[in-house]
């Protein structure tokens, strides 16, 4: 073979390179299977919405969903229960050897002023000083926060039991509805703790005191000289 090629080495004379390239690289027909292969892979062509529109719709739907969720949580949630739980917690803190008190005082007037100065809330304490009211002995007050609202905690003893009364103006919605008396009064027991909650003059109150029996004695903090049971009616 080599000799043959050598004898014909003058290939340019009998070998047209461009014609040979055209022959070797000539077009061919596509196989029938090509369309099927493509058709199986491709997805239906859909007219896509404007991506910004799609995002807007998705964002709006998410907002509606979140708003519904928040509304649902708000509707099912009982703020009184939250405040009662807080009162129970404060009572337990009160019963420890070193209760958390910001301002120690046995003077109801002094405590009222301190609460007013720190929370803006008017708490009408009718109990006198410890010496003037044996049923109620004031310990002091402290300030906490509940859902970003200030809560005044008044610690005292009612008879032999510790008690804590909490007052807050958390319910912005109820503000402006002047109330003439107690409303939404609720009482319940949690073990050896009695829990009361109510609303008055657009403020929310909760009270916790130790004892297995329901009694109106702790109510004397604000109702000295009045039949306390009337409050719990």
């Amino acid at each position, binding site marked *: 073979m080599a000799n043959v*090629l*050598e004898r014909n080495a003058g290939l340019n004379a009998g070998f047209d390179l*461009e014609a040979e390239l055209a022959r070797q690289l*000539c077009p061919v027909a596509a196989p029938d299977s090509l369309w099927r292969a493509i058709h199986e892979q491709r997805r239906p062509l859909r007219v896509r919405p404007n991506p910004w529109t799609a995002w807007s719709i998705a964002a709006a739907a998410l907002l509606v969903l979140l708003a519904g969720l928040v509304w649902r949580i708000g509707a099912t949630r009982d703020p009184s229960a939250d405040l009662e739980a807080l009162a129970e917690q404060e009572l337990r803190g009160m019963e420890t050897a070193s209760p958390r008190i910001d301002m120690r005082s046995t003077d109801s007037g002094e405590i009222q002023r301190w609460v007013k100065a720190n929370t803006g809330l008017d708490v009408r304490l009718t109990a006198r000083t410890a010496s003037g009211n044996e049923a109620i002995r004031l310990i002091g007050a402290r300030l906490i926060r509940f859902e970003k609202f200030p809560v005044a905690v008044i610690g005292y003893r009612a008879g032999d039991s510790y008690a804590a009364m909490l007052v807050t103006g958390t319910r912005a919605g109820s503000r402006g509805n002047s109330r003439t008396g107690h409303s939404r009064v609720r009482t319940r027991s949690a073990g050896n703790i009695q829990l009361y909650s109510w609303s008055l003059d657009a403020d929310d109150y909760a009270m916790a005191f130790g004892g297995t029996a329901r009694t109106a004695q702790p109510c004397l903090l604000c109702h000295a000289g009045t039949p306390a049971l009337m409050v719990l009616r």
Partner: protein
Amino acid sequence: MVLEESDHELVEGCRRGESEAFRALFERHKDKVYSIALRYSGDAAVAQDIAQETFLKLFTGLRSFRGDSAFGSWLYRLVVNSCLDQRRRVQRLMPLLDEAWAMLRAPELSALDDIVRAELSCHLRAVVSSLPDEQRMLLVLRYTQSLSYDEIGEILGTSSGTIASRLNRIHRTLERRLSRFAGGKDGKRA
């Protein structure tokens, strides 16, 4: 390579989601796409993959196609890019021609000429296969599609003068290598 109105209509039909329009566009250009893929890769299976990828790109990219450029040039660019991408993925070379033998046979040639021509054709095939990707693509566009220098230049993004120069260089390379083969067997030269 002027944008044909019918291509325009089919492209618009595809954009509206008409599957018949895509089928018609496929039927019109399938041989062109497949031929380039086959002649470039030298392998029918690889060519089908390339053609498939090209049409899928075409299908998904029709929205970005602007009517101010030629559809043909755009399609050529798609298939060229698919070929080069495939080449990068699969580093293999296959023969460019399936039936070179039969096509090369000329009745007026002697048996000796037949043998010589067949040998040279086989070696031409091997030499073309060994060219760099871009040079091989240039040959495919020129000899498979019979495109002008201007058209090739538009597809590859260069001037027609550069295309002419590159093709001339490729021709000389091929001739040189084939001559070397003819004269290099057994270390002898004519």
